């Protein structure tokens, strides 16, 4: 009872702070200095139509590298933690077969989902999409396959190779930026190209595609590890 009351008091206090923040908030009418810089310079300097992508991949590419590292660590830790209990892994009962609807549906949808995922991360510099979203979509295809057949096993080696190779290419392109352009992860290694076309914005779409592959591989590995805990 006292515990409930303490929780209630804490939430009341937080709610008061939030209400104060909300009432005191006035939306700004103008872009602030940083946002104004991005709005004015992204198109000329980097040739990317999607300013968010330009920020994520180039202006703050180092943050993205850190983010990808965090995801990689998460996937590795999940693999490590779950690999311990592999001894009693044998499945005792027979799982009921997936329904006709799910089987046929997944056979139809998986290629389409993969295609959509690739489209989303290849066009990250033009449309509201990008590597992280596309990677998540690609991994959702793996999730659909696992829903259809919970005992399906993906090749860990393939996932690991894909992740490592795309990570290496990501860093490699960043280092190329150090040599041929303004700095680490600078996208102007290749010419900017015609604004708004697929082959524009320097290496930005290439980097984002590799991020997409890497994120897809990491999410798939997390899903696979969690699915392999299926037992009894």
């Amino acid at each position, binding site marked *: 009872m006292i515990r409930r009351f303490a929780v209630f008091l804490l939430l009341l206090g937080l709610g008061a702070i939030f209400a104060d923040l909300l009432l005191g908030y006035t*939306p700004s009418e103008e872009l602030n200095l940083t946002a104004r810089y991005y709005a004015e310079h992204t198109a000329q300097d980097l040739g990317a139509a999607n300013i968010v992508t330009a920020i994520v991949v180039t202006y703050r590419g180092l943050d993205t590298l850190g983010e990808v590292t965090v995801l990689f660590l998460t996937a590795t*830790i999940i693999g490590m933690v779950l690999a311990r209990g592999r001894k009693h892994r044998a499945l005792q009962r027979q799982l009921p077969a997936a329904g006709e609807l799910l089987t046929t549906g997944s056979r139809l949808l998986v290629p389409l989902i993969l295609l959509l995922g690739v489209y989303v991360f290849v066009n990250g510099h033009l449309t509201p999409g990008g590597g992280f979203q596309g990677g998540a979509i690609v991994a959702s295809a793996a999730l659909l396959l696992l829903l259809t057949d919970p005992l399906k096993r993906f090749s860990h080696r393939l996932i690991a190779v894909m992740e490592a190779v795309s990570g290496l290419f990501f860093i490699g392109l960043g280092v190329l930026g150090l040599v041929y352009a303004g700095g680490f992860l600078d996208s102007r290694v290749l010419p900017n190209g015609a604004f708004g076309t697929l082959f524009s914005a320097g290496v930005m779409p290439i980097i984002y595609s590799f991020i997409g592959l890497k994120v897809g591989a990491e999410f798939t590995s997390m899903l696979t590890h969690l699915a392999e805990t299926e037992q009894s």
Partner: protein
Amino acid sequence: MDWIAMATGFILILMGLYGALTNRNILRIIVSFSVANTGVNLVLVAVGYMRGRTAPILDEAVPMTDAVTRIIDPLPQALVLTAIVIGLGVTALMLTYAYKLYEEKGTLDISKCRDLKW
């Protein structure tokens, strides 16, 4: 009208914290954390919103020349993109530890896990 998204975000944070503090089942706590996480993301996006402006993507509708007066702040969006992905990673980690805990203790009730309690 501008405050609806932000107010929803704050309410989601409070709901998530309430769930995390009052529930005993670790899976429910994880769901509560996800709800709170969504709330934080919503508040961050709402901060970048400006009335009457459009998404920070330049095309025929938003030419380069008047981008400054037509687009919303792109920075919170880039930030939230990061936050969503990290949030997903954190959720996956929490679920993994929940699974390990269940394997060790045979229960999902955290009030029964008293190893570090004295």
